[in-house]
């Protein structure tokens, strides 16, 4: 198995390849014609709301579910219908799923023992991996005497000690409190770069996915909505769903009016227009209807002044709510076209903050504007809650 793994490494950098993978449960489609390539050594995340098919995808790669159709190739070998115990893949489960009847040492050694690794080698490997997850000397502890964070590290050690071609992580942080989670994110990322194993991480937490991933996909209703590096997907969301799910977005409905010199002009309701780089316009527009977006932190807010000179896109409005958050100010501005726009302004101690009710001008560079096709099915609040 390891021979195949190394030869595949030399042949090409793709570690896992999903082709047209579909999974339905009693006629309900959970994963819909999914195509995905994950590269060797990558930290890759599947991100999406609950029920988007991300965990089902992970379980199919792990071998716990069989795809209804399509194929899964791992390290050059078709494993679509291979049993989990015959795959060079290990999983860190959401609930950790440690063996309650075994101590820490036996939990971590479980996979090695099944692979008939020699006793002294098992001891060395378990010792090393416990060092890596920062729990040396915990060998004889019972797993139910460990804290949540420690159990998580043991679950990670138990999977990593087998040096799999691919490590699957199913929302491993969901049971940890916010502070510990943040610490573990950094640690997990550093462990990943140290061991060099491909990580496939499933989460509904967009911040978590962005912090750790080299690349990520945003999934919705069993399909991929966006794929790329976190910055790519964040700055240039491909769909309305990605724009709303990943961070906060201001999305304004408009119609394509005209194009010139790489810039497309979009009209919003009464009179106002916005410019979008044509390259950032979705290719699959079915009509003139489009949604224009800009991230709240990209917008500059100025108190209205006749002599104010602005470049790029400009909108006039009135501050409805102004909130001081310490690191900055958050404004809710109602534009003349009746849209609500959120603005984050960093507290750098220079500008005079506009107050509620004041007339303001919002401006941002054209290159920070994006446009997406309006979502066919409306996005519910449940999907966005994380």
């Amino acid at each position, binding site marked *: 198995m390891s021979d195949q793994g190394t030869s595949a490494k030399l042949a090409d950098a793709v570690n896992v390849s999903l082709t047209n993978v579909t999974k339905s449960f009693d006629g309900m489609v959970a994963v819909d014609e999914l195509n995905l390539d994950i590269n060797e050594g990558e930290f890759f995340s599947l991100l999406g709301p609950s029920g988007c098919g991300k965990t089902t995808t992970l379980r199919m790669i*792990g071998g*716990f579910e069989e795809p209804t159709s399509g194929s899964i190739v791992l390290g050059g070998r078709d494993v679509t219908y291979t049993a*989990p*115990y015959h795959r060079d893949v290990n999983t860190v*489960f959401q*609930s950790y*799923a440690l*063996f309650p009847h075994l101590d820490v040492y036996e939990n971590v050694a*479980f996979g090695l023992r099944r692979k008939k690794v020699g006793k002294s080698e098992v001891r060395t490997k378990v010792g090393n991996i416990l060092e890596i997850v920062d729990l040396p000397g915990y060998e004889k502890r019972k797993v139910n005497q460990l804290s949540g964070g420690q159990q998580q590290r043991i679950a990670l050690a138990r*999977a990593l000690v087998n040096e799999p071609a691919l490590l699957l992580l199913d929302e491993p942080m969901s049971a940890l409190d916010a502070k510990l989670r943040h610490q573990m994110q950094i640690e997990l990322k550093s462990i990943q770069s140290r061991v060099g194993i491909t990580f496939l991480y499933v989460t509904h937490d967009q911040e978590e996915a962005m912090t750790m991933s080299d690349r990520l996909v945003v999934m919705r209703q069993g399909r991929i909505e966006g794929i790329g590096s976190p910055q790519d997907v964040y700055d240039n969301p491909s769909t309305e769903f990605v724009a709303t799910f990943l961070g906060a977005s201001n999305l304004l409905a408009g119609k394509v009016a005209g194009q010139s010199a790489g810039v497309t002009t979009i009209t919003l309701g009464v009179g106002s227009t916005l410019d979008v780089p044509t390259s950032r316009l979705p290719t699959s527009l079915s009509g003139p209807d489009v949604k224009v977006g800009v991230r709240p932190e990209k917008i500059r807010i100025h108190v209205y002044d006749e002599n104010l000179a602005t470049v790029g896109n400009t909108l006039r409005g009135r501050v409805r709510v102004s909130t001081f958050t310490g690191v900055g100010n958050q404004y809710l501005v109602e534009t003349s076209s009746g849209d609500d726009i959120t603005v984050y302004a960093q507290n750098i101690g220079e500008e005079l903050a506009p107050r509620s009710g004041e007339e303001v001008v919002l401006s941002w560079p054209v290159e920070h504007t994006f446009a997406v096709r309006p979502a066919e099915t409306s996005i519910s609040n449940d999907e966005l809650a994380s």
Partner: protein
Amino acid sequence: MSSPPRRHGAWRRGLAPYLLSLPAGLWLALLFVVPLLIMLSITLKTCSPASGACVMTWQWGELPHVVNQYRGQFVTSLIFAFVATLLDLVISFPIAYWIAFYGGRRKNFFLIMLLVPFFVSFIIRTLVWEFILSNNGVVLTFLRGNHLVPSGFHVLGTGLAVVAGLAYNYLPFTALPLYVALERIDRRVLNAANDLYATRSVTFVRVILPLAIPGIFAAFLLTFIPAFGDYVNQEILGGTSNTMIGTVIQNLFLIDSDYAGGASLSAVLLVISLLGIWLYARLLGSRTIEDYL
């Protein structure tokens, strides 16, 4: 500073658990602890076989005497109960396993199906077994007719019949704790075992079986203890031979009026049962006992 009414309230609240457990406590004291103490005290009395009247003489010489006298019946009981319990474990493990892992939404239905025969009275069930196993019954007539057994073959009145009856009558006491133990095994832990290269059979031996051990032990105790003291199966199915200790105790009390002897044997039975439970608590912890009993 707390005011008097609040103190009163707090006092009443502190008392609430005791008041709530009072009915059960009284019940247990009057109908269990007191009779038990009376029974134990009889072992120290000397009783007249003619009138049945007992006088406290603080003599416990009866105890080694009867134990010695009925040693054979003790051994028979131990063997019968042990074999019947093993039989029950072997029979009910696959059933409990299947219901727990493959019962799906109809788990409760299957459990009730398992229990339905036991809605019928213990005695009647055993009498029906006598009918089934009798020399002219369905089973033996069929077997003899097809020359599968010699013509003189019989089951009633043998140890086999007693063991079969015991195994049949105490099956739910084995099956239910096993079911509970298997049902509560976290399926994700089994996924984890598969993920860590354990095949289905290795997962069974390395994960399912160790996690089911407390349930297996509980099932063993819950079946073995009542089977050990049982006398009905032996009397109905076992004929005159293979007397079990339960029958001896019953006879001492009801026929021979040897209350001291019967009470002594009962005390020995009790001690043996307690030993089993103590062993369980020592090996597997007292918390798991509460889960099954």
